């Protein structure tokens, strides 16, 4: 493909819709981020669309803003998918090597992969990803078994599937703008590939993407994705808890969370108070810091407790040598890494987006869209993209966004 392509990464999150526009240049070898658009999310709860019209309006507004910012028209969309409906399971398959000289042939590899992917899903469920967890030849891990000698070839896949209608709703929101979804990536995989280094992935790392309404997790071991999942707790829960616990409205609770929030309680915080507005107007009142921290800590402990429960067999320093990396908007909450390390029992750090991204886009809440663009670039290189129609009529149609 010689021409530059404009792709859009779309994340329909719980609090906002983010659209990032990337230009794939140099015959698919490099990527320029050329624009970003955001809008407040509406009609979305816990990553699932509950009001199609509202979700369409805000997503389309974000796409328009991004295209305007980029000065270009998006040609294809890479869409992030999250929500509690996403589920994962592992499926292992093995075949006996068919050749008499015990050399693994392509046909053996193809056969074992097909077997591993063959599992039927219940009705109304669709596969999102089949993530390969590596080959084993006679029990020893191998990267590429082709032409290696052995008797039994195994492959394990981590399958991620979701509700067909809920996935379809996300796709149709994009289709409503006149665009096609070229690929769909679950949020944790997109953000994980941005914040975890190759070395960490090799040593074993857990990536937690704590968003507004959900927390997506992704576990790497030996460089492979071995577990993904979604916990329906996110930043919104912290805001709600503060709102209920301190009897303030949601905006005030959000402000308190962002300005004074902290994930752990220090001894010196016990007597300090903060003002709700700070301008002595009617309704302004002093709120003990301790109360804010206690409320936040309770919810954060619950969140990490759920994660710990779901990943109990992996949460030890042997399995997770590289520890935990936290990203997503909530990762900006002070001392969150300390709270996670204390609760999960493994070293934890806050994820940072790669240095090739310009400073204002390195915020943790952009990890997912950056990961989507990165995925778009690698898909371009591996030729996974559907070839775009070329010719003068397509060009004219593109000019007018038809």
């Amino acid at each position, binding site marked *: 493909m010689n021409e530059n392509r404009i792709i859009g990464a779309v994340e329909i999150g719980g609090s906002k819709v983010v659209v990032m526009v990337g230009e794939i240049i140099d015959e698919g070898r490099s990527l320029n981020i050329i624009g970003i658009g955001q809008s407040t999310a509406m009609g979305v709860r816990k990553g699932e669309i509950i009001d199609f019209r509202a979700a369409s*309006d805000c997503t389309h507004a974000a796409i328009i803003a991004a295209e305007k910012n980029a000065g270009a028209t998006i040609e294809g969309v890479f869409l992030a998918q999250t929500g509690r409906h996403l589920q994962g399971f592992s499926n292992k398959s093995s075949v006996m090597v068919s050749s008499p000289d015990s050399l693994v042939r392509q046909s053996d590899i193809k056969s074992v992969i097909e077997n591993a992917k063959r599992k039927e899903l219940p009705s109304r469920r669709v596969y*999102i990803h089949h993530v390969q967890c590596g080959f084993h030849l006679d029990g020893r891990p191998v990267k590429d078994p082709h032409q290696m000698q052995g008797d039994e070839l195994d492959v394990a896949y981590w399958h991620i599937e979701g509700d067909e209608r809920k996935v*379809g709703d996300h796709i149709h929101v994009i289709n409503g*703008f006149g665009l096609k979804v070229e690929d769909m990536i679950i949020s944790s995989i997109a953000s994980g590939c941005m914040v975890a280094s190759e070395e960490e992935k090799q040593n074993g790392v857990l990536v937690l993407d704590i968003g507004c309404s959900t927390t997506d997790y992704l576990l790497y071991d030996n460089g492979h994705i071995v577990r993904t999942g979604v916990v329906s707790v996110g930043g919104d829960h912290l805001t709600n808890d503060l709102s209920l616990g301190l009897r303030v409205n949601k905006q005030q609770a959000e402000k308190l969370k962002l300005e004074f929030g902290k994930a752990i309680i220090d001894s010196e915080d016990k007597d300090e108070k903060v003002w709700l507005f700070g301008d002595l107007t009617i309704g302004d009142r002093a709120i003990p810091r301790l109360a804010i921290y206690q409320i936040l800590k309770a919810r954060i402990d619950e969140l990490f407790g759920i994660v710990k429960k779901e990943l109990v067999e992996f949460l030890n320093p042997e399995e997770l040598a590289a520890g935990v990396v936290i990203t997503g908007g909530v990762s900006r909450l002070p001392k969150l890494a300390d709270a996670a390390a204390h609760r999960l029992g493994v070293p934890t750090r806050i994820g940072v987006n790669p240095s090739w991204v310009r400073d204002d886009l390195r915020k943790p809440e952009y990890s997912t869209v950056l990961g989507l663009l990165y995925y778009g670039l690698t898909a371009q290189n591996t030729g996974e993209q559907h070839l775009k129609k070329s010719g003068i009529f397509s060009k004219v149609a593109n000019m007018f966004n038809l």
Partner: protein
Amino acid sequence: MGKKTSNSKETRNWRGIKQTAGRQAVSIIARKRKFVAHAKLCGVILIILLMAGGIAYSVHFIRSYENQIILSVTSDPVRRINFESNGELDYRWFERNVAWPRDKTIMEIDIFAIKQMLEKKGQIASAIVSRKFPDELEIEIIEREPVLRARVKGKKGKTDEVYVAHDGTVYFHEDYGKSKKKHLPYLGGVRFKQDDDHILSLPGMDVISQLLDTARLNYPILFESWKVVSCEEFNGLNEFSDQIIKIRSSIVREIIFTPFDFNRQLDQLARVIEYSERNHIYNIKRIDLSVSDQVAVQFYPDLGPRKFRN
């Protein structure tokens, strides 16, 4: 919402979900964008159509206009030719020597061909031929001015008189009067080369012309005595350093010039002639002005009454 999906095996993958958007899936923003895109497309199509229509109309207009011009002039034959020249030629000469198509109308006549016919004549340096509507042709010519004359043998062995212009062009002319011819010295010592009907130009005539013009302007009496200019030892092609121009006059049999600094040489010649006349010396045979700033004068041996004829 509630989009249909097929029940084939591919539906197990999200790619099996049909990517279409129902009317309710299209937001107002998307609809507006689509409308703008369609409007732009319609606009472009309209502009293209207008341009195409404009071009078609222009072509049609130009064609019909051309037809009108032709129709309006085909009925007008040439009724008059206005012939102007800066020299000897006149309308009668034109009628005798140029075969222009008399049966054609003013628009049918190829004025470029007439111009070419005129400029083929050696005497004519340039010609302008134009139409003056509705029925006149205007011809304006600039003639070459002769500086020398010569005699050449024609095809039938007959001797013809030809004229040499400043630029070396050699041409025939029958209308020069005696008074004009009288002031033109003969050219000698030159081999004329013929190409088809005309004689090829002579090289170096610009230098000869310079000498003759200077003499005619500054020493007219001296010039009147010049009868023959000989180019035996002047070819006008290479370096002039060893070349000389010989003049035969009625006073001196041979005057030799170098092709440089004619003013100096003519001044020296005039002084020698004046001196000889003042002292009644009439037996000068040769004056050589080509010897740097000296003048070599050769006399006939007899000092008695003139026995020689220059």
